[in-house]
């Protein structure tokens, strides 16, 4: 922990105000530090505020109480230093894959030949070569998410915020996409904050797993899950199995609690 943290979440509390009904405390004095090039997973039952925390770091929601600093500067809004990938892709449906990937590069004022080349490079990186002129409506869920990842990686954010990116995909596609993401991350290390409710996914991908409690969201524990992820038999690996078991036990109580508060 000697290197200074790149992202500092400092006692963040957040009230969720639904259009109707009472306001809910979504996050309660959450603190978290993430180092550069670290892959951290935010794990918790649905409704624990893990996505809210991600949106706050992204600058999409206003910080009301506490402070979030990225590279020492307080977050005041969205910026291309923090790229986001959403569960439901959020691709521009009226643009082709290429058009989507180009959009961020155009906004940054990159000259045309350079951005065309860069867009194609990233389309290739995520394995969408040959689909650059397809519209999102013509792609499968996994391909849409590949396109969304290419779009975000292309404008080269220092930090990658991923909001249950594989949550809408079928099990096989999800497994493949996890391997792909790990491959991409290992070839171009970035700081990643990865929101998920899938324990195996979190242990497989992340260096550390922050387990969150049911509403109001707090960080319950942070579990170190750094080990060799390239082991072909990783899912039978003793360390992997133990970590999954340990974290599952931590999450289980919270998941039951979350169910309880929901039905109440």
């Amino acid at each position, binding site marked *: 922990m000697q290197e200074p943290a790149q992202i500092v979440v400092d006692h963040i509390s957040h009230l969720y105000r639904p259009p109707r009904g009472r306001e809910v405390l979504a996050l309660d004095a959450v603190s978290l530090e993430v180092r550069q090039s670290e892959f951290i997973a935010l794990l918790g039952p649905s409704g624990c505020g893990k996505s809210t925390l991600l*949106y706050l770091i*992204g600058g*999409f929601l206003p910080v009301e109480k506490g402070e979030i600093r990225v590279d020492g500067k307080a977050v005041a*809004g*969205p*910026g*291309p230093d*923090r*790229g*986001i990938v*959403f569960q*439901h892709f*959020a691709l*521009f*449906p*009226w*643009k*082709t894959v290429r058009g989507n990937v180009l*959009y*961020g590069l155009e*906004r*940054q004022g990159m000259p045309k030949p350079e951005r065309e080349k860069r867009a194609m490079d990233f389309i290739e990186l995520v394995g969408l070569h040959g689909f650059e002129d397809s*519209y*999102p*409506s013509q792609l499968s869920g996994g391909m849409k998410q590949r396109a969304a990842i290419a*779009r*975000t990686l292309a*404008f080269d954010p220092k930090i990658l915020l991923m909001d249950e990116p594989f949550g809408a995909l079928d099990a096989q596609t999800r497994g493949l996409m996890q391997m792909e993401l790990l491959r991409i991350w290992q070839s171009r290390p970035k700081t990643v904050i990865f929101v998920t409710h899938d324990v195996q996914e979190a242990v497989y991908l992340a260096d550390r797993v922050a387990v969150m409690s049911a509403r109001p969201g707090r960080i319950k524990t942070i579990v170190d899950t750094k080990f060799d992820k390239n082991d072909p038999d990783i899912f039978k690996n003793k360390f992997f199995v133990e970590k999954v078991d340990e974290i599952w036990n931590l999450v289980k109580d919270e998941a039951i609690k979350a169910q309880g508060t929901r039905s109440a």
Partner: protein
Amino acid sequence: MTKDAQETQETRETIHGVPEMLGRLAWRLIWGFARIFSIVALLAAWEILARSHTFTPFQLPALSAVLERIWSDAESGDLAINTALTLYRALAGFLISAVGGIAIGMAMSRNAAANWFFDPIVSVGFPMPKIAFLPVVILWLGVYDTAKVTIIVVDAIFPVIAATVIAIQGVERELIWSARNMGASNRQLLHQVILPAALPQIMTGLQVAMPLSLIVAVVAEMLMGGYGLGGAMMTASRFANSTSVFAGIVEIAVIGYVLIKAMTVIRRRLLIWHPEANAPATA
């Protein structure tokens, strides 16, 4: 596919192509006829009923007589003048409604003051029969084109405003966040993200405004007089010229159909990216 394989396939297609193409053509004709069967049946019933002497030609002129009248009007040039005038008024009213309605809808979505001002007007104005303003429009603007186009706009602008407001409200938060994330400014966000994302629903509003514009154009012409299909029908009616009245009905039906088809074509062109673009069309 290699070049050779491609060529072989092409040859095969030309060999088997001719009878297959004829078969497909025959099917398309049969289907095309089946789809318009009800219209053809209605027209045939009209002709038979008119010839059966159940009604006098004054009450119900035969379709053949009506078509002859349309033909002679076309030859004399009356049809072209009346159609052009009605179309000009309807389209001018439609275009002003489209541009104005989208602008007002956008302003209402983006600006609290604009919303505060326009929202009650839209709430009261949308469901009300705006044709009630016609006497006022006549008092203020007379009975010529300005008045006619104005009453069309008063009617057709409401569905465009309502569709635009609802469309912009419905734009996914994630799309806006993605654009912001990539560095879009407020202006860019509006033009490059919110408008295209809202376009399918705005188009639906425009598809409602188009027939409305034609309806009000014809009604205004009927009530205000002068040239135009509506005016010509009223004149014919005053002279007890029932063949010309029915000719007007047929002409308006054809124009309405063509305008709506044109809107559907424009929609498909503009929304080529939308899943619906791959869906089969209706007649």
